[in-house]
């Protein structure tokens, strides 16, 4: 019972800051698009590949969290100011770390993400050659393995 009460109290405490934040008005570009459809498309593509740090597996383009709104505002206003999407991504990574970007870049910590698919391609080619390629020459002998 006590543990249950404790969980309840903790849940309330956890919920409060969220409610408190909600009372602040969102930044202008958090929920408003850029006028220029080309710039908005650029911003939208970038926002879909940035992680909402307060959420669970959501991009900032798919989140109601106030922080995601602030980040959307940052992205849109910087695009409007003429920055390139890649520059904005780098700025955000410098600020929040690699975690913020859904698009991993080759680095000392992420190289297996790129090495292993290459390895998979090689294995796939190997398996296919072994299973299918060999057949033609074997067929002539007619031997069953």
């Amino acid at each position: 019972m006590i543990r249950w009460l404790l969980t309840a109290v903790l849940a309330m405490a956890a919920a409060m800051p969220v409610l408190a934040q909600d009372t602040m008005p969102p930044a202008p570009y958090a929920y408003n698009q850029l006028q220029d459809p080309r710039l908005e498309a650029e911003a939208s593509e970038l926002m879909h590949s940035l992680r909402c740090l307060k959420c669970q597996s959501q991009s900032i383009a798919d989140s109601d969290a106030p922080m995601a709104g602030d980040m959307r505002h940052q992205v849109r206003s910087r695009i409007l100011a003429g920055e390139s999407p890649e520059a904005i991504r780098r700025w955000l990574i410098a600020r929040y770390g690699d975690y913020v970007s859904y698009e991993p870049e080759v680095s000392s910590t992420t190289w297996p993400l790129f090495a292993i698919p290459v390895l998979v391609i090689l294995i796939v080619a190997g398996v296919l050659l072994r299973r299918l390629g060999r057949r033609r020459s074997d067929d002539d002998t007619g031997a069953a393995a």
Partner: protein
Amino acid sequence: MIAEIGLAALWLAAALAVLQMVSGGLALRAAPGEVNALAIYARPAAVVQAFLAVLAFTMLLWAFATTDLSLKLVATNSHSMKPLIYKLTGTWGNHEGSMLLWVGVLALSGGLLAAFEKRLPERTMGATLGVQGFVALGFYAFLLLSSNPFERLPVPAGEGNGLNPLLQDIGLAIHPPTLYAGYVGLSVAFSLAMGALLTREVNPAFARVMRPWVLGAWVLLTLGITAGSYWAYYELGWGGWWFWDPVENASLMPWLAATALMHSVSVLAARDALRTWTIMLGVLAFSMSMLGTFLVRSGVLTSVHAFAVDPERGAFILGLLGIYIGGAFTIFALRAGAVAEGKRFAVVSREGALVFNNVMLSAILAIVLLGTLYPLLTEAFDVRVSVGPPYFNPAAAIFAVPMLLVMAVGPLLRWRSDKPARLQFEFALIAALVIGVIAAVSFFGQFPLLPLLGLGLAAALAVAAFLPLKGRNLARVPVATWGMVIAHFGIAVALFGMACEGAFSKERLAAVAPGGTEQVGDFTVTLDSVTPIAGPNWTAIEAQLAVREDGGAPVILTPQARTFWSPPQSTSESALLTRWNGQLYVVIGNQAEDGRWQIRVWWKPFVTFIWYGGILVALGGVLAIAGRVRVDVRRRRATALGTQRRADVEALGAEPVPAE
């Protein structure tokens, strides 16, 4: 009392799982042609165990239905004010309840196998049931030792904590049970594969026993993923239908393995080829089910699905995973050499195409597995990386594009060996469709590469799916073949939906004062009013939006922003306007300081085709099962009739003998 009955049933079921395991294992020790005296208990043990496990789950369901707040699980996850339907679905909206559902389905499928499967040799059946009992035992131990769903509180709680509002939705009522049934159906495929491997009975007869289980599990996984995707689409309020979220990947991986297994087992049944492949995929498919369960249930992921945060449980499931998968692959490594290679085939043959696509499916599986596990791995070393759509989409496409091309021509090829020259017209047609559609779409505007490729492939696949019917008498095409045609067509339909959504979606985010109008595509959206309303366990603001298509008659849409009080959380209830060629998706957001309301509107052309496609794929699977069962029943009836006739003839022939 109800909870105690459930707990007792669970312990008894665990004891029966031990009996089933031992008795099934003893079947292996019987001399060929004889039956071990102790091996006869495996079948009844499995059947009674199924009854007990289902009884335990029913008891928990009852406790949730009546909101028995003396149960810890009910008190922490339910609330007396919740609508009855969500009280019931809340049974599996938590760790313990969902594991009990898992075990219940596992025992039920084991019981069905034991009760109705009479075609396998007794030794193989014994080994299969023994493995099934061993798997079940691990999960009973997990449930009873570390996540007892029937734990009582010393003092009953006054009121429950409630259920995560995101999960209070009809999507949750369908999605997890379907997915679990699919996961667990693969356990039967796994047990059968192990049984066949242990008794060296990997042959077409075994494949025919395994096939309905694989097909059934695959249909359920397909439906579960489709329902889950649609749930995420309308419930999360931003119109995304697939996020490459680890939890989604956890359901996609068994599906990929099951898809490969289903095709492989069909080849084994029809052609006696791909024996070791089938066994390996059987082990792999269930491994992925268990891995999915581990990812979701252990709390290693922080996501709405990961309710458990206790690391002890994670370690327990990881241990089970190690024992079953490690053990299975060890037996596989030891015994695979003893399984004779099946019938041979040429590169250009239907088997060849199926092997190619199974390898591609396995490669996609490897990519998804890597992208899902790698961030968890680096997190253990305090390096946090995110792997998302910009990684998964292209990496999976490398293998998916050749796979889809081969899928278009594969069903046209003959078994064993074929000549490409015979299919010149079909090849040319498919190539022309891919290139033609891509060229035509590119002419009208600039679109990203992947949706463009998707459109081209979808067109080619949609036509190619029906080519196997060319020149055949449609009335005489077997039901199972119709199943294949419809499932392949479903893939094309889903692909078309995904590509259209990716390439042509229109978005409008704006702050609108009541009376204000916004334009999205051909639609004008007018905010009529915003009113507060109240539900059973929430309050909400509801917007009234008048939507006019090309200035036609208005349709009223009412999206809501709901605030639940137990637990305190807000959700967006999107409003959808479905047309044959897409959906208009409307969400109401916050009120700005100047009194205007944030609205989000999307026009998503053909987005519904994603889920129509999923349903078609599942329908294809159902037809395949129905077709096989029909053939099987007919064959059984014919055999029974033949035996009876032979007996009659014998009786007639034998009668005159004593008369002489």
